[in-house]
């Protein structure tokens, strides 16, 4: 288990617990009691810590290396998943996973950024930073889903679109713009879930859903706290202050009515109990999907567009 900087006391407790467990055979009952006592203390500490995480701490949790990623959700929630590859123009982009499968018995198109888990897969998926091909693939798959009346689920988890020479030459900006355009025009339900990091344009390209969900400790922002700090504070070390100012937590975005609901995470974050997380996310998606499937396609499109064209409009005017 990877511990974050603010989890030091918890790390110590858990260290003690595992030490005690090794000795338990030798010393019998007392140790089992001690372990139980420590475990309840860990639970209490986790609850206390995670109930009042600062925006910067949430940023770290959102980027936690053990946090469930797009492929994990697909593995847990989508049966018969068949990945579909390529943008039909230039190449396949492994930073964006896409394919069809069955979600609780129903055909769905799933699209999302995958960050990778270890060095090899991180490189393969380019750390979840997509190139234009990725967004063009997403667009192609959304159009495919639209043609066959298949609802679209997106799992958003990216630091941002990849900033590179080739990406620029092949029209990163255009690819993102078209992806936004296409997703806003779909006549099938589109549900977007921010599962970790929602980084700027690269995130919103897949996040203009009829319903946008955010996990409790995920973040969604116009720029990373580090990037914002280096531009506005001219000091990358001010990321903590930038994270506060940017209002990037799920709770902030819920308050600002940018998202539709916050999905609760297990105590201590999604990575501490991935199964419970999948269950929560799956249930929430199912409930919203049921409602959306009652709505006619043209209405779904119109409502989605009306929702996004009103964002930032002064409500009391």
């Amino acid at each position, binding site marked *: 288990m990877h511990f974050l900087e603010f989890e030091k006391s918890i790390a110590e407790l858990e260290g003690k617990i595992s030490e005690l467990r090794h000795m338990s055979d030798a010393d019998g009952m007392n140790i089992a009691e001690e372990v139980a006592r420590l475990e309840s203390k860990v639970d209490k500490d986790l609850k206390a810590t995670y109930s009042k995480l600062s925006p910067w701490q949430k940023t770290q949790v959102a980027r936690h290396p053990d946090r469930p990623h797009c492929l994990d959700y697909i593995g847990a929630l989508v049966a018969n998943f068949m990945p579909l590859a390529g943008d039909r123009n230039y190449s396949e982009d492994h930073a964006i996973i896409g394919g069809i499968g069955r979600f609780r018995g129903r055909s769905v198109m799933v699209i999302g950024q995958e960050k990778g888990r270890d060095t090899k897969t991180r490189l393969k998926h380019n750390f979840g930073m997509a190139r234009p091909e990725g967004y063009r693939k997403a667009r192609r798959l959304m159009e495919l889903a639209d043609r066959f009346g298949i609802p679209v689920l997106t799992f958003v988890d990216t630091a941002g679109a990849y*900033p590179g*020479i080739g990406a620029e030459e092949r029209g990163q900006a255009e690819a993102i713009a078209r992806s936004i355009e296409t997703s806003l025009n779909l006549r099938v339900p589109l549900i977007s879930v921010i599962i970790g990091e929602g980084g*700027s344009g690269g995130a*919103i390209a897949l996040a203009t859903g009829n319903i946008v969900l955010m996990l409790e400790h995920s973040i969604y922002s*116009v720029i990373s706290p580090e990037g914002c700090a280096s531009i506005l*504070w001219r000091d990358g070390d001010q990321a903590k202050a930038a994270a506060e100012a*940017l209002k990037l937590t799920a709770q902030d975005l819920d308050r600002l009515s940018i998202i539709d609901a916050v999905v609760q995470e297990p105590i201590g974050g999604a990575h501490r109990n991935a199964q419970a997380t999948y269950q929560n996310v799956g249930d929430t998606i199912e409930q919203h999907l049921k409602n959306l499937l009652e709505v006619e396609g043209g209405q779904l499109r119109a409502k989605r567009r009306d929702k996004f064209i009103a964002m930032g*409009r002064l409500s009391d005017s």
Partner: protein
Amino acid sequence: MNWLTNFVRPKIKRLVQPREAPDNLWHKCQSCSEMVFHRELEKSFRVCPHCDHHMRLPVRQRLEILFDNKKWTEIELPSVAADPLKFKDKKKYSDRLKEAKSKTGSKDAIVVSHGTMGGINVVIAAFEFSFLGGSMGTAVGEGIVAAAELAILQEAPLIVIPSSGGARMQEGILSLMQMARTTVAVDRVREKGLPYIVLLTDPTTGGVTASFAMLGDIQVAEPGAIIGFAGARVIEQTIRETLPEGFQRAEYLLEHGMVDMVVHRSKLHESLVQLLGLLLHRDPAAPVLSLDSVGRKRRRRKKEDADRLLASPPDPSIPDESLFESEGDDGSDKS
């Protein structure tokens, strides 16, 4: 404020500070470092007569070159929450806004106007770069939405002229949402069968490029304009390589298929009028602005070049001469 600050201070200031006026008469071109007399610069719409460098244009000078007879009507934009996140970095966002307002005389980084071009009714939404780097927050989003609605109402084509560093960080997620918002707005114009033209000017980057600015039916760019998604510095830091010559410039985008054309500022009005006339099956009613001598001469030279090429097929081992001359070399006859 009292009579002292009102009346005495400016006089003292004038005595104490060195006079600035003489400096402003001459403008140094950032590209070729030549000094240009201010009147000449105004006459050429801030295109350097020496090197053809297109300097940034204040929004109203921009409108002057585009609308017929330099006449247009600006519309009042709906007001927005001034500082929705109560954002503060080293400075309060509300203070930055105030400063930008007093510096530019604009309410925000966008001006929405309507008038005629070649007799055709058009709506133009143009960015003011000097207002917080032309960044897109809710007010700019409101501007694009209003421009799109006006275009639909008037059944007029929409021209958007971005000049923007991207999203306005101080409005956080709300500025990101403007990407989706403006995309819907311009889509609605296009769905009505009305032309949506984007004129990309220096610079157009970030969230602005990745939304409405890359969705034009026709994409026009000004020479030398920086157009891209990620900033050059970010890319360099990420890939640890130096960037190719001319990277993210309008001409580079043209080569990579990202824009339809790169048009010299002196030809903008004419080109846009022609485009609109063709798209709308109309003969522009008003006389098209006459070709200036530069354009004609350049065209003649291009023809001569072509003739020469036909006479002697190119030898790939000899570098193309034209690569080394900038378009503006024949600009001497502008005087």
